[in-house]
């Protein structure tokens, strides 16, 4: 079947390759209005024909056209499009393009196969361009997006190197379903799996070799942010419905850079910098032996030394590692063949001993024009990352670094003496020793590739028909090594000293996505119809095998050196199929669109059943033309999208194990509904876009209302029924919110340009109906957890509290969802100097600071012994917190709002002449100093208000059990263009 198709394509492209009967040559230049500089790479096309050309570095172009009057259309990314009529007797022309500072003309992908110019866009799609994304070096795409997208709550799970961030678009949309948006890279859905590695074997945070408390990084981290041209964010069903059952959390469309015709461009950037921890808890000073004994027991009387202060936290996390990044890119090509090649070498040290992140990545993007009608493009990348993160987060073995620190008195020296570390007699481990000797390493090879064949069947002035097929593959293999040598204190105390974990994961996503797009623009009318139909076939597979060896002979790492071995394996596979159709209508300033997607998936109980997701949207632009208000666009859209059950949720299982080798089967904890199916989100979105001061500023205001019905629910059944958990669809959640985006270019003179932007968003979720009694979901039992209850926010924290009458109750003690989020960015260019900075403000939202509790229990918080008088009784600050905690769990529910200076960069364009003596070809040179996460203002008392002990979560983010601390990074960069 496939061979036949390609034969057809080949046949047609040959048969149909008709070339216009050229009668004259038009030449010209394309220049930028304010500076008169040439606009290299501008695309010049002759409307209604296939003829076209590209402007060279001098802005010059030449194109063969038919005799008679024609219209040239000239466009270039970052400039406003210009259509110029050319009479029959004119053969030369100079076209002046105006900079599109606010990107009003950028084409936004709105369907699976089509896009629309931003000026007509009917829903609030946020777009972040590569330059805005990469102003300051970041390890992952998500951290580079922080503060830049209205409606996105982007938060790190910890400060650990190598990623692990969650993007939540427009608030809470699920309780136990997938919490992530769909990531589509160059047209194909990509894996964002986070596979836990196996530090659980060391921390004992949960049972088994690994757990979701292993601080796993989601694999979007493997993408090189420098390769990204644009990121478009469809935030909810109203915009993302065409992606069907995988789109209710929104869709993030990532487009990588491609080559432009013209002279080959070679850019090299060398960055060097360092990072340092931006916040530590601090440790308690003991002023007397009595204090020491009161905190650490009788043994402390022996070990206490007055005046001695060892800050173990500083010893562990006070490193200032050097970081480096080398980035190369090569792009160029001819009209027919264009390429973009990039390479990245990155090394980031960690502020904690023996941690860090290395990334190497290569990308090759190719665009090949075959004849006039067929274009084949290739997008491919391969990345290798190596992440070392140590053991942080929840722990039950007293080995996790911040749990261990809580039991390390500052009067005791725990640093190494010639490589041998003393045991900590007051705890289970010595954090210095663990960090120095434990090996925790995740290595990932991630290959992403797609081929897009696009056949321009018709390219008339009336009919334009494109047949396209994209095939994609996303494959990563992850290897996790955890090795805890038997000489460590905690291993010596174990029955089986020495632990080694080897875990291997293979993940494969396969995708094929054909589509047909027909655009009809009748002559003499200002309207057009765009019809697109297509389908998508996807296979998602994951296989993880973990082996743990204990009691390591000779203290060696290889798992065959262990006398006690155990293993686990997890396999997942999901098969999806979808069909979509979309109709778009444009008449001058009116834009209407309707679409429908239907899909089925093996994740549903009935793999053959189709689910249908419609959408409608429209916008109208009023061109007002006053000096204040140029135009006003009203837009509205409504759409539905789904969220598939996770793999395995539909099964009711017997769990196999053994008792001394005799096979055993037990009832699984989960009883699945026989008709498990996707959650369904219906989103209504409306908004206004204002274009002000002669397109110097735009303001976009958007409100949305999402009803999520048939929620995937986890019902805890009465234990006496012998059932534990039922998974089924039911209930309704409403999530409403408001977003605003402001972009302005208050000053745009030749010498001075100032662009400023602000994003604002808030969202509120509420359970409207629940077919089951209220239940807790996520977090730690009894210490403050989200509770699913009608009329209440699903992210509200409930926990034990005391009523004024002294009786104990369980009631709301906090709220995890921030009140609002704001981003403020500014970019100022004065001649050759350039300054940019970005603030990210999360206001409100609480965090359950369990680490604070652990440190208080150990009486090792720095302020523990500070005197305080409560109700006439003298006590200490720490003891008061502990006493109060007996009555209410509010004590360690702390405000988690913050303002962070995410990015600051100062750069200067040097004269290329400086370098031309060494490299004659240098065309431009820039030096810059920059920093990320430089300053944090927060009342939060833990390490960092960006924290999630359980990783990416629908609800229970903001649980702090001693995560990896946050760091700030400083960079110096030299960028040369050849």
């Amino acid at each position, binding site marked *: *079947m496939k061979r*036949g*198709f390609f034969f*057809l394509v080949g046949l047609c492209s040959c048969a149909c390759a008709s070339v216009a009967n050229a009668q004259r040559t038009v030449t010209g230049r394309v220049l930028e209005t304010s500076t008169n500089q040439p606009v290299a790479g501008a695309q010049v096309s002759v409307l209604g024909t296939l003829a076209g050309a590209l402007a060279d570095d001098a802005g010059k172009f030449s194109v063969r056209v038919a005799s008679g009057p024609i219209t040239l259309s000239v466009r270039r990314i970052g400039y406003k499009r210009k259509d110029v009529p050319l009479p029959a007797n004119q053969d030369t022309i100079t076209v002046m393009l105006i900079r599109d500072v606010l990107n009003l003309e950028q084409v936004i992908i709105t369907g699976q196969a089509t896009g629309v110019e931003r000026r007509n866009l009917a829903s609030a799609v946020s777009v972040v361009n590569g330059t805005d994304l990469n102003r300051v070096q970041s390890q992952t795409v998500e951290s580079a997006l922080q503060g830049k997208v209205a409606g996105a709550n982007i938060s790190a799970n910890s400060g650990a190197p190598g990623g692990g961030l969650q993007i939540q678009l427009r608030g809470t949309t699920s309780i136990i379903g997938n919490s992530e948006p769909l990531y589509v890279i160059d047209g194909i859905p990509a894996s964002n799996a986070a596979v836990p590695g196996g530090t659980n074997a060391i921390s004992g945070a949960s049972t088994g070799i690994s757990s979701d408390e292993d601080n796993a990084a989601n694999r979007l981290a493997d993408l090189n942010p420098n390769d990204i041209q644009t990121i478009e964010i469809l935030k909810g069903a109203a915009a993302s419905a065409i992606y069907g059952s995988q789109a209710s959390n929104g869709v993030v469309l990532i487009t990588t850079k491609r080559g432009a015709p013209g002279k080959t461009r070679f850019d090299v950037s060398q960055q060097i910098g360092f990072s340092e921890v931006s916040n530590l808890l601090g440790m308690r000073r003991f002023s007397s032996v009595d204090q020491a004994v009161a*905190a*650490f*027991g*009788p043994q402390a009387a022996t070990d206490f030394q007055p005046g001695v202060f060892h800050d173990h936290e500083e010893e562990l996390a006070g490193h200032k590692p050097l970081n480096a990044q080398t980035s190369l890119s090569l792009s160029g090509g001819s009209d027919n063949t264009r390429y973009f090649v990039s390479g990245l070498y990155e090394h980031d040290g960690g502020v904690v001993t023996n941690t860090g992140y290395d990334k190497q990545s290569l990308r090759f993007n190719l665009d090949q024009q075959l004849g006039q009608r067929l274009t084949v493009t290739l997008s491919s990348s391969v990345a290798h990352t190596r992440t070392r993160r140590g053991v942080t987060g929840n722990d039950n*073995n007293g080995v*996790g670094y911040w749990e261990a620190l809580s039991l390390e008195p500052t009067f005791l020296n725990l640093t190494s003496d010639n490589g041998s570390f003393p045991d900590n007699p007051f705890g*289970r481990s010595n954090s210095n020793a663990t960090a120095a000797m434990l090996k925790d390493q995740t290595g990932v090879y991630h290959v992403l590739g797609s081929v897009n064949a696009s056949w321009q069947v018709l390219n*008339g002035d*009336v*009919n334009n*028909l494109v047949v396209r097929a994209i095939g994609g593959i996303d494959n990563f293999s992850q290897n996790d090594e955890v090795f805890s040598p038997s000489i460590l204190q*905690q291993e010596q105390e*174990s*029955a*089986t000293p020495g632990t080694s974990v080897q875990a291997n994961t293979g993940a494969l996503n396969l995708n*094929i996505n*054909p589509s047909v797009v027909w655009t009809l623009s*009748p*002559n*003499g009318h200002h309207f057009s119809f765009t019809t697109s139909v297509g*389908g998508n076939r996807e296979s998602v597979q994951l296989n993880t095998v973990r082996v743990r060896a204990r009691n390591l002979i000779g203290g060696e790492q290889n798992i065959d050196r262990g*006398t006690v071995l*155990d293993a686990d*394996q997890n396999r997942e596979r999901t*098969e999806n*199929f979808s069909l979509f159709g979309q109709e778009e209508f444009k008449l001058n300033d009116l834009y209407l669109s309707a679409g429908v997607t239907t899909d089925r998936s*093996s994740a549903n109980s009935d*793999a053959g059943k189709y689910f249908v997701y419609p959408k409608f949207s429209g916008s109208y632009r009023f061109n007002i033309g006053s000096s204040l208000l140029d135009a006003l666009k009203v837009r509205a859209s409504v759409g539905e999208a789904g969220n598939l059950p996770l*793999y*395995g949720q539909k*099964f*009711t*299982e*017997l769990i196999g194990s*053994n*008792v*001394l080798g*005799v*096979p055993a*089967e*037990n009832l699984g904890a989960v*009883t699945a509904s026989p008709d498990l199916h996707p959650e369904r989100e219906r989103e209504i979105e409306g908004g206004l876009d204002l274009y002000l001061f002669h397109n110097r500023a735009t303001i976009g205001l958007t409100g949305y209302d999402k009803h999520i019905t048939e929620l995937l629910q986890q019902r*805890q*059944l009465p*234990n*006496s*029924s*012998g059932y534990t958990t*039922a998974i089924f669809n039911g209930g309704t959640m409403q999530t409403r919110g408001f977003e605003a985006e402001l972009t302005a270019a208050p000053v745009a003179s030749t010498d001075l340009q100032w662009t400023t932007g602000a994003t604002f968003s808030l969202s509120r979720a509420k359970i409207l109906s629940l077919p089951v*009694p*209220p*239940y807790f979901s996520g977090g730690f*039992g*009894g210490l403050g957890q989200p509770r699913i209850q009608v009329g209440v926010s699903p992210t509200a924290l409930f926990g034990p509290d005391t009523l004024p009458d002294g009786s104990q109750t369980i009631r709301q003690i906090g709220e995890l969802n921030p009140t609002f989020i704001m981003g403020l960015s500014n970019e100022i260019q004065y001649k050759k100097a350039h300054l940019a900075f970005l603030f990210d403000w999360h206001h409100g939202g609480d965090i359950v600071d369990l680490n604070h509790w652990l440190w208080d*229990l150990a009486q090792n918080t720095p302020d523990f012994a500070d005197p305080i008088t409560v109700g006439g009784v003298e006590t200490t600050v720490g003891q008061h917190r*502990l006493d109060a905690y007996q009555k209410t769990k509010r004590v360690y529910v702390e405000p988690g709002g913050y303002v962070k200076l995410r990015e600051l960069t100062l750069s200067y364009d040097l004269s290329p002449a400086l370098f031309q003596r060494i490299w004659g070809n240098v065309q431009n040179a820039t030096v810059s100093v920059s920093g990320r996460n430089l300053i944090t203002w927060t009342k939060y008392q833990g390490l960092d208000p960006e924290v999630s002990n359980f990783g990416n979560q629908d609800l229970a983010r903001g649980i702090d059990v001693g995560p990896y601390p946050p760091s700030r990074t400083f960079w110096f960069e030299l960028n040369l263009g050849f």
Partner: protein
Amino acid sequence: MRISITLPRSPRRLRLTALAACAMLTALSACGVTDVTDLNNSSIQDLTGNPTPAGIAAAEIGLVRTARGDRTTEINVLGIYGRESYNVQTSEPRTVTNTLIGPLVQQNGGGLLFGGYVTIREANIIMKAVDNVSGLTDEQKAAVRGFTQTWKALAYLRAIEVRERLGIPLDVDVDPNSAPAPIADRDAVYARIGQLLDSARANLAAGGSGFPFTLPTGFEGFDTPATFAQFAAGLEARAHVYHGDFAAALTDLQGSFIDTTASFDNGVYYGFSNNAGDAQNPFSDATQFFAHDSDWAQAELRTDGSKDLRAQKLLVKMAQPFSLPTYGITTNYQFVITANRETTAPLSEMRNEELILLRAEANLGAGNNEDALKDINTVRVKSGGLAPLPDPYSGDMLQALLYEKRYSLMFEGHRWLDLLHYGLLATLPKAAPNHKIFDANPYPVNECVARNPQPAGCDPIVGF
């Protein structure tokens, strides 16, 4: 306004396009979405739909496995409640707060030994599967039923023993979406346990010479229907003593493996192993489990001035004390099993020594002090290496019995239960003023959420 639309000039090309598009979509759907079966585990259908003897065998060992898990919980938590042991995880303070300080609420401590209902449901599924399975003889089916009912009864016993004054639900096969089963009081629960074990023993008696499955190590001597019935009889005696049915207990004991001449350690054990997919003895974790100092201090002295042999056998002094000042916990002793990190040491469910002491307790309860004293002294001399109590004994017989039970069955989950049964919990020591003694455990949260009005078992238990 008239709209004229120019149709494409190249219908052939269009036809080809349509053909190509159709071809692609057909190819796509031809690939089809096949359903994906469960790649990681077997389905419950294997047991409920088409049961096989092998499937039933594995499910039976599943009952043993959950009983083993519940046994470790019982020893762990009741050891703390009864001030025999500590389980201290510094980074999981709930190990202390939920067992020594409280209050015990639905979320914290509510689930203690309540998980047995899953075992009971599994047992019920097995009972139905046995009716439908082919490949088992009637004798083998009877043996399976008897074995299953024994574990089911034990699951009820564990749930009620920590909720004596509250009662527990009895009916398990209710629709989980409708109102849960009513709470039965302790009399009704112990009556059900008695019925189940009577039925189990009858089935085992009809069970032929062997089980149609292999039992794991630890069941030596109890691995045939006839010998396993002795274990069931012992459990029934235990339940009857807990409920105060002393005459019934004495009858049960006759069917058990009680034997003052045999090894006191003879009995049913749960083995542990280092095998993948199995579990290690949790009490081998030397960083977590500690003994109470009073375990050593209150052991009686032998004639040579050394401590009771049982204390010497079970306890070992640590090189330096373990201390958790914030909670007022300091201890110098550890259990030998922990100190030696015995990951594969078996844990007993029932030993001959317990049966002898149960007989003493039943005789004492029935007023046969002389018979009781005989058994007490047998244990006291043989196990403790202590001088026998004078016959007739003028002291407090109950205290004498409780001392022997405490030291013979130390760290086996009995002391708190014994003191509870005789209203003596207040005699337990408290390490810090804010520590509490609890006399029951509430129901877990999900049991309470499903009930209206809330039964007494949903209230926090503050302790005293």
